[in-house]
């Protein structure tokens, strides 16, 4: 994407730049981007742009939301309504955008540390609710932006600045996590799988429901160098040799480390009601029920309703694990 800015001397070259097929969706005034040579994030952004173009998406109604980290910067390079939020919180922010205006097409693009460590709770609940949004999780096995710390996706034994003697923990199998939490489209590709990625992104843009797309991406600077794995090309070679394409594979079998064989493909594509559909059904149901009453609704009826709803202090007993003080605080 840095592409043609090397030697811009003539107007002709400039006008060619204007005609770059991705101009309409990229913020060219923010180039060059911050990503390292050999990083896969540029590829992911290109595939996103290609898929949006292929689907004829209305860019005015597309929103992209990111958290913090290298992948978190994606929202800043796309010429869409873009929200670069706090660490781990892209999904709840996107939840608000989506539910307050369900006509928006929302994509969350963030990294493994952001979405699965600090934001892990939000991810599983968004999947459970089947919110109508696309989550693209770029997994590079490490915290890149902060200098290469161990992540919940770092394979066992791999070194990071905060696991200098090797990671002790078992990494997440993200497709399995998403599928078992309730996502309705679950896929994994590598940054080598450019055309397949575009196809799956396009499918997700048109899907109604929660799509979780994991993209395995090289981090040559902070993950590979420390683990003596060579550069970005070596990782692409590993992808080429060791990924096993199997659509419909059981996500339970999708464990991944950074050297052995691993599954990629579209693992899951099912339909179930989205949160917003269920919410709209509920609104319809209650409006039918309450419609005849609406005109009669007097101050008295609301009054009696309010009386019935006596405040209670019991709710927090569950949260705090302590007995509620019955009746306390009601004056």
């Amino acid at each position: 994407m840095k592409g043609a800015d090397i030697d811009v001397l003539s107007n002709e070259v400039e006008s060619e730049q204007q005609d770059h097929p991705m101009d309409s969706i990229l913020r060219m005034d923010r180039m060059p981007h911050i990503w390292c040579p050999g990083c896969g994030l540029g590829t992911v952004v290109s595939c996103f742009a290609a898929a949006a173009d292929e689907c004829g998406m209305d860019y005015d109604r597309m929103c992209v939301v990111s958290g913090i980290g290298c992948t978190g910067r994606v929202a800043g390079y796309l010429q869409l309504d873009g929200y670069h939020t706090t660490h781990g919180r892209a999904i709840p922010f996107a939840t608000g955008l989506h539910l307050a205006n369900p006509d928006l097409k929302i994509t969350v693009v963030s990294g493994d540390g952001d979405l699965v460590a600090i934001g892990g709770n939000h991810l599983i609940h968004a999947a459970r609710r089947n919110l109508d949004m696309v989550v693209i999780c770029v997994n590079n096995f490490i915290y890149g932006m902060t200098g290469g710390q161990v992540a919940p996706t770092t394979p066992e034994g791999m070194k990071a600045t905060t696991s200098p003697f090797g990671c002790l923990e078992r990494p997440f199998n993200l497709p399995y996590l998403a599928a078992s939490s309730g996502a309705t489209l679950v896929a994994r590709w590598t940054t080598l799988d450019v055309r397949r990625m575009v196809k799956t992104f396009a499918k997700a843009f048109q899907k109604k429901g929660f799509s979780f797309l994991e993209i395995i991406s090289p981090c040559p600077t902070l993950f590979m160098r420390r683990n003596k794995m060579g550069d970005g090309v070596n990782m692409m070679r590993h992808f080429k040799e060791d990924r096993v394409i199997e659509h419909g594979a059981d996500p339970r079998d999708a464990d991944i480390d950074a050297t052995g064989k691993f599954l990629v493909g579209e693992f899951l594509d099912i339909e179930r009601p989205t949160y917003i559909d269920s919410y709209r059904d509920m609104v319809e149901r209650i409006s039918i029920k309450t419609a005849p009453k609406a005109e009669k609704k007097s101050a008295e009826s609301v009054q009696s309703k309010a009386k019935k709803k006596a405040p209670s202090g019991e709710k927090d007993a569950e949260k705090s694990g302590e007995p509620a003080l019955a009746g306390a605080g009601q004056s």
Partner: protein
Amino acid sequence: MLTADPVSQSAAAQEVLDGILPPGSYYLNGDEAAAEGAIAANARFFAAYPITPATEVAERCAERFPECGGTFIQMEDELAAMNCILGGAWAGAKALTSTSGPGFSLMMENLGLGIMTETPCVVVNVQRAGPSTGLPTAVAQQDMMQARWGSHGDYEIIALAPDSPCECFTLAIRCFNLSEQFRTPVLLMSDEIIGHMTEKVLVPAADEIEIVPRRLTDAPKDEYWPYVPDDDLVPAMANAGTGYRYHVTGLTHDYRGYPALTPEDQHAQVTRLKDKILTNKDKIITYEMVMMDDAEVCLLSYGSASRVARSVVDILRQNGIKAGLLRLITVWPFPEEIVYEVANQVKAIVVPEINMGQIVREVERAAKGCAQVKLVPHAGGDLHDEPTILKAVQEGLR
């Protein structure tokens, strides 16, 4: 970059959808009244996590938002709830959440995002006693300094403190108005006594309610930048999906919304964020004075504590002591000029608050030594009793 007129528009009030309470008087607790105030202010997006003593706000909204054309969601935690309302606000809704101390702590992270990205929204904090889980069902006013400083970094905040269910209703509306006018999160700092107390709440007709609409840009789409401030330092907003295709970030940013990370950029942004509140203080600050004209001693209080202070003023007057009440309605930004004036009038300012001394420090700072300032602390769990405050007044007058 022109903005919509930020003063009351009855036309905007008429846009309020069906489902709002018909005018009249209602018997509601403070939590329910805050929820109804939000609905009357045209709030149509609510996200929260259950917590005592704020749960009744959520329960009321769960029932009422769907019938008002609004959206309700119970989130997985308060981190999510705060973020969710920011998203809801950017999508064009007037959005709120409700919580109490432990949840308020979790909301601090993204309250900061709301301030940095200049997102209008309202947080209702029905305060209970802490630290930590503390007394879940009992009153305190211990989050007043957290409200001011709880999120990291330098910023100004707007916080209002209601003293009754009726004021929960009116101040909830005012919170939304201020949040839209100044494009910032606004805090309604209620407390357990006010939240759980049931009183008469007067609901005016919709066209009598002042509603400040969002300051939406009318700039051409290719000329809009999201952080070009207006004369009052507040930038006009564009809701998501309206074709402006802007960028918003929690990083320090320039007028384009793009990350701008030099000390100069940082200075410019922090200064404007503070100044948009501080230079408009006179539009934000409200307070109530009771029998202050000839007062020689002032009881300064807010929220539920001010209800006891009010009755102490009566007792003192009956005993021939010229006492008055200054009740803060706007706690942040702090009304230091008013307090300074009062300090020049009275011998002592007595500050009953249900904490071990938070707002009293601001009072001391604002009084500049012109009057004796005396705290009446309370660790929480109950209101002050009158004799304790009376004793403090006597000591102050000595």
